[in-house]
């Protein structure tokens, strides 16, 4: 059976050893505590921002964008998303906000062309707005 040890070792060397070990404890805990404090700040900032924003409680910008696209493009319609303009990364993922439509990769298979443009005017609910164009028969075959 191991000998029962006292809470702190006796003697100056023992106290020095304990002091150094306690410094290690503080140095080890400090970065984790700082990270936890910053994590708590993320939470409080999010909650505070949400409390300030009445719009966030009603409808998110993406919900709004989806609703407007759904009003412009019939369900199941074949849609092409052009890749030739600014906001390209939004264009490529545009189909994600039109899940009711069938996004195809060639205009000759599509009935509609769908683009995102920067929203303007007082009725905007998102920084982006959909622009839909019905393709002519010679464009969509």
């Amino acid at each position, binding site marked *: 059976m191991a000998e029962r*040890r006292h*809470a*702190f070792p006796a003697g100056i060397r023992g106290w020095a050893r304990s*002091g150094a070990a306690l410094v*290690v404890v503080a140095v080890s805990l400090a970065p984790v505590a700082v990270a936890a404090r910053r994590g708590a700040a993320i*939470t409080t900032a*999010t909650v505070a921002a949400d409390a300030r924003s009445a719009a966030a409680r009603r409808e998110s910008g993406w919900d709004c964008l989806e609703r407007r696209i759904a009003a412009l493009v019939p369900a199941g319609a074949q849609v092409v998303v052009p890749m030739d303009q600014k906001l390209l990364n939004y264009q*490529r993922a545009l189909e994600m906000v039109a*899940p009711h439509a069938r996004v195809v990769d060639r205009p000759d298979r599509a009935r509609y062309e769908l683009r995102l443009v920067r929203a303007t005017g007082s009725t905007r609910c998102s920084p982006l707005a959909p622009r839909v164009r019905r393709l002519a028969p010679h464009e969509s075959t």
Partner: protein
Amino acid sequence: MSTVRALLVGALAVAGPGVVPVLALLGRRWVALFAAPVVGAVVIALGATVTVLLDLPLVAGWAAVGVAVTVGSILLGRRLGPSRDALRFDPLTVLCAVVGAGAAVLWAGSRAMSWDVHSFWYSRGRWFLVGPDYVREQLQSPFTSPYPGAPHAQYPPLPSATAGLLWELTGDVNYFAAKLVLAGVTAAALVLLSLGVARLLGHPRWLGRVGALLVPSAALYFATSSSAQGHQDLPYAVAGEAALVFGLLLPRRSAELTLSVVLSIMCGMVKNEGLVIAVLVAVMVSVRHSERRVTRFLLLGVPWLAALGSWRVALRLVGLIQPAPATPPGVSQADELAVLRPLPSPAVSTLLHAGAVHLWWLAGPLLAGLVVLVLVRAPVWRLPRPMKSVLLVHAVVAVPLLAATGLTISGGPGLPWPELLARTARYTTYPRLALSVCLLALAAAALRTAIGRPDEDPADPRPTEGALAERGPPAGAGVGRPTSG
């Protein structure tokens, strides 16, 4: 359907299939309460894999996997027998873990979500509403990814399938309810990680409770504020670390093994980064629990790795993994970003610098503390054995993950370096969380040195002399002999 009702349906759908398996394998423990949602989320992810593989609706795939997991766990539980001594936690430690995890997911009350979250995770969930053929069609479309390379649509399915199942069951596409349900799964994994860390730190108990309180918020910081917008870096990193702690650093018993298996599958089914962690943990834990017997290693490791790789295998079997599609006509995203922010392209040195920026303030104190601890301990030049294990297993997992991440992003999007630097904060989520757990283990070892307490090996369930003295006679409860997993 209101968000509250949708949330209730989601909670039942996620936690329900996990109840019988955790009761069969873990028994009636506090930890079972938090393991059930994790098991349920894994069942949903595997159900999505079955959906893609067998061309079934998501609900059918989910039900089939749920029944299989339930029956399998009952049979396995009967074979292994009750684990009386495993995973007992005192109520105060559980309370600290729950409070810490709850504080780290309070952001779930915000409806805000980022573009990536909307386009990758939640909108992918809507594919399952249309049908399995539509899921397949979208998975192979190069246009479902805003980045070059493999489509983001082929990311593991746990987050999107959880949202899709919720919407299919409720008949209502409610993004806020999906965010709340996924936050609940994340919170359950955070509680499990906190409990695992508390057990890893051992005595004195107050340090374990402090660790249980701090770790969830620290993990949220490492995953960046994008978590509050619904990004999935927090759950994969937390599940991976918890799987490592339970599987490699705590006693070699069936309950710890069960949690490690479930958490690692969750880690691999959330993000591709998690797959690297999960595979490494699965291999190491299988080696540890096989006791050098090949048959045992195969019986444990093969089904585990098969579950982890099932999504990639399913995509390959149905021909969805193909060579990277040709760049569509027009300018690329990298071209556009270069026009918007004309900055130098990232080089390997920039990547290394970016990684070091995020890691040094955790790695520096760890190295300095280790040096001092080695110097003050008697005999000199010896680290406690548990501390060596903690450092070694974390290095084995974190270093390959960093290397894989560096390779991926250096050959991937080609983003300007400030963009990359910002993203690297999230790429180092897991390594920073691992460093934090190492720091807490170092604090525990140093504290025991300071108060002259003998070292404890958390992997050994037998109590030390010091623990017995603190606990007082009789020392029967919570003491058990190690059993093979």
